[in-house]
């Protein structure tokens, strides 16, 4: 999902962007008020995306991913609300005011969650994220898992469909009624998983031979630029996030 651009947002330290996204999600979902999430999207996320020179792509992707949720929530919660004040009545269609308001609030939250994640994913290269995580003390084995996963996902997807085609050419029925299609699963899943498990052994030996378990301190080829200003900014973001959570929890308990 990463989009390469020359912008101040792209040059920010990955953890600064990560803590900003976290702050937006937590405050948008936990602060009181029905329209907080719309406010944050309009006055924080969109300007930041504009600064990152990704605004057009960004809106397109957020809209594309959120649309099925939005349609679903608006239809279900306004039409099937149960007791309430109808906005208008036409045959059996009678959307309720209370439902429509709930749907609008939910739409705001959905867009906020999607936009918060996507803003981060579109402006952060996965490898720089990993290096910065290592720098703050996340174990390198965790970094290994995430980087490897991102690399092998496309290979596995094509492997699954290769097996599907191979079994089809041997006469496996993959179309027809639901039972036929369900029966096709096992002859595809078993070869996929078994051949992948054989790989585990080879990979384990390969990385151990390259000093994966070494206790020596690691160095990295790529240096991630960081500034004192950003370090302070990150701390401020995280403190506000934690304070918001504490405030919300105590408020909920007192109520």
């Amino acid at each position, binding site marked *: 999902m990463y989009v390469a651009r020359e912008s101040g947002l792209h040059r920010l330290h990955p953890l600064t962007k990560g803590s900003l996204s976290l702050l937006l999600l937590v405050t948008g979902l936990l602060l009181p008020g029905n329209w907080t999430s719309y406010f944050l999207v309009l006055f924080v996320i969109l300007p930041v995306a504009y600064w990152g020179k990704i605004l057009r792509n960004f809106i397109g992707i957020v809209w594309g991913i959120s649309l099925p949720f939005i349609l679903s929530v608006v239809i279900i919660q306004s039409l099937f609300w149960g007791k309430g004040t109808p906005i208008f009545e036409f045959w059996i269609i009678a959307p309720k005011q209370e439902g429509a308001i709930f749907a609008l609030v939910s739409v705001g939250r959905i867009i906020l969650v999607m936009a918060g994640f996507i803003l981060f994913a579109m402006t952060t290269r996965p490898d720089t994220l990993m290096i910065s995580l290592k720098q703050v003390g996340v174990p390198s084995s965790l970094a290994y898992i995430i980087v490897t996963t991102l690399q092998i996902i496309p290979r596995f997807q094509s492997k699954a*469909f290769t097996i599907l085609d191979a079994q089809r050419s041997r006469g496996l029925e993959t179309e027809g009624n639901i039972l036929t299609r369900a029966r096709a699963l096992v002859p595809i899943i078993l070869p996929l*998983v078994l051949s992948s498990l054989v790989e585990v052994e080879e990979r384990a030996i390969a990385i151990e031979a390259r000093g994966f378990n070494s206790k020596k301190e690691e160095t990295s080829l790529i240096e991630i630029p960081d500034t004192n200003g950003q370090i302070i900014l990150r701390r401020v973001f995280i403190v506000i996030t934690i304070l918001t959570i504490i405030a919300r929890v105590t408020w909920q308990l007192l109520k």
Partner: protein
Amino acid sequence: MLDNIKKEFSTRTLVLIPIAIAINIAIGELVVRLKLPVYLDSIGTVLVGALAGPWAGALTGALANLIWGLFNPFAAAFFYVAAVIGLLAGLAGKRGAFENESPRWLSVLVGAVFVFSLTMFILAFTNATTDDTGFTTYPSMAELFSSYAIIFVVAILVGAAIGYFLLQRGGYAGIWGLVTGVVAAIISAPTAAYVFGGVTGSGTDLLVAAFRASGGGILASVMAQGAVSDPFDKMLSFMVVWLILGSLPARFKAR
């Protein structure tokens, strides 16, 4: 305790986890391609839990959804559910659920009890009445039994048949899968209801609409939707892993 956790994360486990996450995604997409009404996107997570242990399973689940979140933020919001699924799979593995064959009568019993309680649950929901003050009354069990006796008999028979033909000798894995599915449905409902307004943007939203129309609250409807789709899905996932482990060479499992 800490030593036990460390032992779970051997080099082989660290290599296995990315492969398992890729399997999750590849099979999840395959199922969509075959147009089957299940998810089956946690087979890899269950596999790690079964082979390596509960903590490795939990980490796999959480990372799988967070990494998937880079492409689809919806999955990331449910990372804690995936972690619990991996954890439960690991506990099931420790109890030998994936190694021991269950007697066939047990599978029949589990299938029957499951479909029976599911039917009762749905009927109780669709027969609930809401009065003007918004107070919902559910019908008593005796009322349900007297008015739907035939449906219950059919449900028991269908369940027994599912147990006999589908669960076969994998009754223990099947039971753990069902329990995991129920837990997953319960713990995912609050997030689905609060953050996403109760919708998933997919076909199962029709179920939510049906439950809302019959007078269920938002949280209850989401939970009911999950209770219908999750246990069956997780049962299938656990069964597939049971099948896979049955066809693995003993040499692989020993480590």
